[in-house]
């Protein structure tokens, strides 16, 4: 296990490097929330979820809904790393004609199952999938990653109510609670705390973790899978921009990409060696 966790940690670091390079190249996209979510996405794709990049439409696969769709770069680098499409495609993020849209679009990207981006809608879709699997007696699990600012959308709580009501225990919501949204502190813009209490009130099993501790994330995901009779919410405390000191905890980096001066600083923060720094075009290398 210890070895696996250190492998995941190294993978998460490399995925962070890929996010930074991708966003630098595109000069458009969301940096802070991609970096805060990547450890959880890494644990999902390389520890927990049953999926097969060779066969994106494999029926036995677990499903992932990136409800906070603006963290698309984090999803894309993980999909590329897993082998759903060539890593070179990341260079085309947000470009006209690219299959990597600004927000996840199931119609073009292998491995993306639902269109997300308009906040608040993903948990409903995830619960619908979970209900469908239950109806068919299938073992597939559904994971939805939400942002804490996103929880201000009322539809999230409609979905939480429904999942609690229908006891969809094949559903797991992960909340990337980085405490910041575009206009500033979540607690100041519109306080959503206590997130855990709210999910509990709707009948959910709740696990609180440090969203950057891969051991904790994996342990929570395993526990969520074992929990029967209620959906599980993993409420993860995270740092917006995590891993790059100049981006950390800054709301201003919500939708801002690294510029030419920031790129080498960011890459050094992420422990890039000389070769990685020189070879900036090779995403995920």
């Amino acid at each position: 296990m210890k070895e696996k966790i250190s492998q995941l940690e190294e993978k998460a670091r490399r995925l962070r490097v890929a996010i930074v390079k991708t966003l630098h190249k595109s000069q458009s996209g969301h940096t802070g929330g991609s970096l805060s979510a990547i450890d959880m996405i890494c644990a999902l794709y390389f520890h927990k979820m049953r999926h097969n990049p060779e066969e994106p439409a494999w029926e036995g696969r677990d499903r992932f809904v990136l409800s906070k769709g603006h963290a698309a770069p984090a999803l894309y680098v993980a999909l590329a790393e897993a082998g759903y499409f060539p890593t070179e495609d990341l260079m085309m993020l947000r470009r006209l004609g690219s299959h990597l849209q600004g927000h996840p679009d199931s119609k073009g990207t292998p491995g993306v199952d639902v269109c997300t981006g308009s906040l608040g809608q993903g948990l409903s879709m995830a619960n619908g999938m979970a209900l469908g699997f239950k109806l068919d007696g299938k073992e597939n699990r559904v994971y939805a990653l939400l942002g804490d600012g996103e929880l201000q959308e009322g539809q999230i709580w409609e979905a939480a109510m429904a999942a609690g009501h229908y006891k969809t225990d094949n559903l797991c919501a992960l909340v990337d609670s980085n405490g910041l949204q575009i206009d500033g502190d979540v607690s100041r813009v519109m306080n959503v705390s206590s997130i855990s209490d709210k999910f509990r009130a709707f009948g959910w099993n709740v696990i609180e973790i440090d969203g950057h501790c891969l051991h904790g994330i994996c342990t929570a995901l395993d526990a969520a899978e074992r929990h029967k009779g209620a959906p599980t919410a993993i409420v993860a405390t995270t740092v917006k921009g995590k891993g790059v000191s100049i981006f950390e905890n800054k709301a201003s980096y919500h939708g801002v990409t690294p510029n030419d001066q920031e790129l080498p600083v960011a890459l050094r923060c992420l422990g890039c060696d000389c070769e990685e720094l020189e070879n900036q075009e090779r995403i995920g290398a």
Partner: protein
Amino acid sequence: MIATRDAYGETLAELGAENENIVALDADLSGSTKTGVFGKKFPERFFNMGIAEANMVGTAAGLAAVGKIPFLSTFAIFAAGRAWEQIRQSVAYPKANVKIVATHGGVTVGEDGGSHQSVEDIAIMRAIPNMTVIVPADGEETKGAIRAAAAHKGPVYVRLGRNKVPNVFPKGHTFEIGKGCEVVAGTDLTFVTTGLMTGVAVAAAEKLKAEGISARVVHLGTVKPLDKEIVIKAAKETGVIVTAEEHSVVGGLGGAVAELLGEECPTLMKRVGVYDRFGTSGKSEELLKYFGLTAENLVEEAKEIFARKK
């Protein structure tokens, strides 16, 4: 006489027996929308989502994403209105195989008043890419429309009414998405209609006949995609088009026909519908009169525009 919503409930239950992938969702109105008929027969495949339309739409999209064919229902104003963005984002954008069957469309919902009378939903749904918009004329056509919606792969919006409406079509009438049909032959002018206004236009055509005017009635059970051919043919052959719908004249059937003819075959035309205002409380019949949606009014409008043709 049967209400289109009753025909829906009956057909949905039949479909449920034929295809176990069909599931139904409702937002606490299953007695009114008639999804309850399905719910009683197939309780495990019926999901009452409570008074939470946005979540209902998203849940249906999720069910569709794992291979189900969800039919979701509520009143037209709550589907097209409250859950518009969910329909756009979670259903239409990914081309999810979700069937939105909205009941209580138009002003004939009646006494509940303007808050509950949906006179914008056809326009709203028509503006969304990938969306098919169906407005059946009667119960018989509704049966075919529901079956066609189930067979169609992709998002469909079917708009139904609350009240019983006279039959326009015979038993076994076939419905094909995107195909209009000539209900009454005529050479002087054409009523292009949808929903319950088709039956009204048939009555108007009879009255006009007595006055020596030969009116054609073309029914468009599908507002989107529009059967361009049948509309252009009618415009060319009769020279005058009068559209009629239980909906705002802004952006609905009248808007669609005007857009088409404006680009491809400029024709003298008149849109009959609700003239850019909200509904109001009243009995259905009173409201049809109040908003000018009667055979008598269609006759008047037709005569007036026919006079301009000469």
